[in-house]
């Protein structure tokens, strides 16, 4: 009883003191919060008065980013001071978010008309901001010379209906990763595959030979929402590099899709893959412990994770994954199915400019200055190095030269080959098409695909269901039929 009384009194003291403290703190922060607001309105007035003398006018830019690399927000602080040396009148406010909820916060702010000036997005999400009218055509505000620094292929990802909405920051390629020794024992010519690809039949042979009583030939993380990775990565395997074909027809209704689905049906019933869903985190553990020969989705940077883990194991560090084996990690392109062109799945993340109540032409020019600063040179190189990939603009690649990646030559060659095989989506896709494609993916393709992976339906039924829904959404004439190249 006594203990309880003490607890109660401690708590009530805490409550009272917090009351007092909060009262003060709240008012303080409130006043503090409203000051910049006033400052902003002042700037606006000032701006209206002296539109000519742009460089003297102060401006505030807000940028919203998730932790692109673990320490991105800290790095950003350094870059901002560097930027301010050249542009002392531009203040940068950073809003940092978490990966899972970045989109939801950004959309809420955009819908409220209070979007940040710059936001990090995946290229696939641009459509919804174009739809609601907050995305901005940036080509008018950026120096054309600066624009030529960026690779056209990467810029195409940031383009919808011929309009450029942002700058690319980095490209990720997603394919397969494996254990060299096991792969070679299963008859794969690893070095050749890394630099010139392989066929689907070869792939099936290898995972068949690689399967033993205590190990799978191939494990793909496909539980829950990660199912979409499987569709994306093996989609390119069947020649579907984007939701839309070059003549802007919806591509998941093509014969390519049917043969992809049939291939998946064969793979899952073969016994070379687990017949249950695998969580995203598990695939790497299974590779590290030798429970699988090949895994997906895999990225080049896994090489680093695996090396560090083996070092720990050798040092008898208890933090090493239990049962770790020594291995050499190899990054591999996806196999190519008959009649399809070899390609690799790539996705681009970049920065887009968004409209809010402070948006003026002049402000946008400042916004683009900062956006370009972040997406080029050493800033972009830092991100590229963190994901073990080469940059998508000339200045970033130059900055990368001085940096030594802990990557094997073979894997570096495989990455170079893979990047050369990435096909950007056609640039004429409309915002509505892009949004509808997302709806199709989330509401029809992924759920049906999950049923296929669970062995509850057939490839033909899934294909028919996809066609029915797609015809309703896009109209049959806007959907691809037959085999697309």
């Amino acid at each position: 009883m006594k203990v309880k009384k003490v607890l109660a009194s401690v708590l009530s003291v805490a409550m009272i003191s917090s009351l007092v403290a909060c009262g003060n703190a709240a008012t303080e922060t409130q006043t503090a919060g409203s000051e910049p607001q006033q400052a902003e309105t002042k700037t606006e007035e000032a701006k209206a008065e002296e539109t000519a003398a742009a460089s003297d006018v102060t401006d505030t830019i807000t940028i919203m980013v998730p932790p692109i690399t673990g320490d991105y927000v800290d790095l950003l602080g350094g870059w901002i001071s560097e930027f301010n040396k050249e542009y002392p009148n531009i203040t940068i406010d950073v809003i940092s978010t978490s990966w899972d909820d970045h989109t939801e916060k950004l959309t809420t702010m955009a819908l409220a008309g209070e979007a940040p000036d710059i936001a990090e997005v995946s290229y696939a999400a641009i459509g919804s901001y174009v739809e609601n009218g907050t995305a901005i055509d940036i080509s008018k505000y950026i120096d054309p010379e600066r624009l030529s620094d960026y690779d056209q292929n990467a810029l195409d990802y940031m383009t919808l209906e011929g309009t450029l909405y942002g700058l690319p920051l980095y490209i990720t390629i997603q394919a397969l990763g494996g254990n060299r020794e096991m792969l070679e024992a299963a008859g794969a010519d690893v070095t050749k595959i890394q630099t010139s690809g392989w066929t689907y039949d070869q792939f099936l042979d290898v995972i068949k030979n690689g399967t033993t009583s205590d190990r799978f030939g191939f494990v793909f993380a496909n539980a829950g929402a990660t199912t979409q990775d499987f569709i994306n990565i093996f989609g390119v395997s069947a020649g579907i590099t984007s939701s839309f074909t070059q003549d802007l027809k919806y591509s998941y209704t093509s014969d390519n899709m049917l043969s992809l689905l049939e291939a998946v049906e064969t793979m899952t019933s073969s016994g070379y893959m687990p017949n249950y869903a695998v969580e995203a985190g598990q695939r790497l553990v299974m590779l590290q412990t030798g429970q699988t020969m090949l895994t997906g989705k895999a990225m080049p940077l896994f090489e680093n994770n695996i090396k560090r883990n083996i070092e720990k194991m050798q040092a008898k560090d208890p933090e090493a994954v239990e049962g770790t084996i020594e291995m050499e990690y190899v990054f591999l392109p996806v196999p190519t199915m008959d009649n399809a062109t070899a390609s690799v799945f790539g996705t681009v993340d970049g920065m887009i400019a968004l409209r809010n109540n402070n948006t003026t032409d002049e402000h946008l020019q400042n916004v683009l200055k900062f956006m370009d600063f972040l997406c080029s040179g050493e800033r972009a190189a830092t991100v590229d190095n963190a994901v073990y990939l080469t940059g998508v603009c000339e200045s970033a690649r130059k900055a990368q030269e001085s940096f030594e990646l802990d990557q094997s030559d073979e894997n570096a060659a495989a990455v170079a080959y893979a990047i050369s095989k990435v096909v950007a989506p056609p640039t004429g896709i409309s915002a509505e098409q892009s949004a509808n494609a997302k709806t199709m993916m989330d509401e029809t393709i992924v759920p049906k695909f999950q049923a296929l992976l669970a062995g509850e339906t057939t490839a033909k039924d899934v294909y028919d269901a996809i066609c029915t829904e797609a015809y309703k959404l896009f109209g049959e004439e806007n959907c691809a039929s037959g085999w697309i190249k």
Partner: protein
Amino acid sequence: MATGLYSQHLHNRSIFYIRNSLIAVFLIAFAAVSLFPIVYMFAWSFGPAIESASTSYNIFPGRWSLDSYKAFISFSNYSLKWIWNSIIVATFTVLGNVIFAGMAGYAFSKIKFRGRSFLFFVILLSMMIPYQVTQVPLYILIVKNFHMTNTYPALILPGMCTAYNIFMAKQFFQGIPTALIESAKIEGCSQLMIFNKIILPLSKTILSVMAINTFLNSWNTFFWPFLVTSKEEMYTIQVGLKTFKFANGSLLSPMMAGACISVIPMFVLFFSLQKYFLEGVTVGAVKG
């Protein structure tokens, strides 16, 4: 007290003990099942402070250490401030609800005023619209119109008097006999006096239940604080915990450690209010 529900088996105490033991065994067994995820969480909070894609399938980590607790505290300069922010927000939310929802619940159940039925109907109806669509206008209101980003009021005001609590208070006050209130009126009490002198003493239980549940909800709310804070120093603990998740893996054990630390204030509150949970309505007071 509700002891009268059970026979006390005064003639045969052994039946009494056997019965209570059986119930206890069942309660413990079921508790063990529903506590399992918590035990798992607690155990792994002592795991290694490394970024991992996943953890092993063991229920307990291979080596126990306080590294993750240290990592949680040193992860950000504000780790402990997050807990403090949560305490402030939750405390004020609780006070607001207990006072204002309590009073409103009383009025809805015991005072016959014009517009009462309609108003209660509207309040109930408003609960039925999912938050996903109301958060955009609410955001406009708080951020655009009131300029409250990164302030405590932004975190506290929207939840200060919830429809849920008004409804709960109303349902409980309905159980208090109207005769009690009528006789107080006859003796010349105003409604405020009735509420203070008669209703409040009778409703310690329900108000403490409301307090603990509101505190819990406020403590676990993630999305709204995430929306209206952009400075790390103003994060609540739930927003902070989310920053332990990265694109290709998470600091799982430190995240679990943070979750375990964040349970402590809840537990303190829970056990300090225990007294009121058990007191119930004093015998005789309600007879009216």
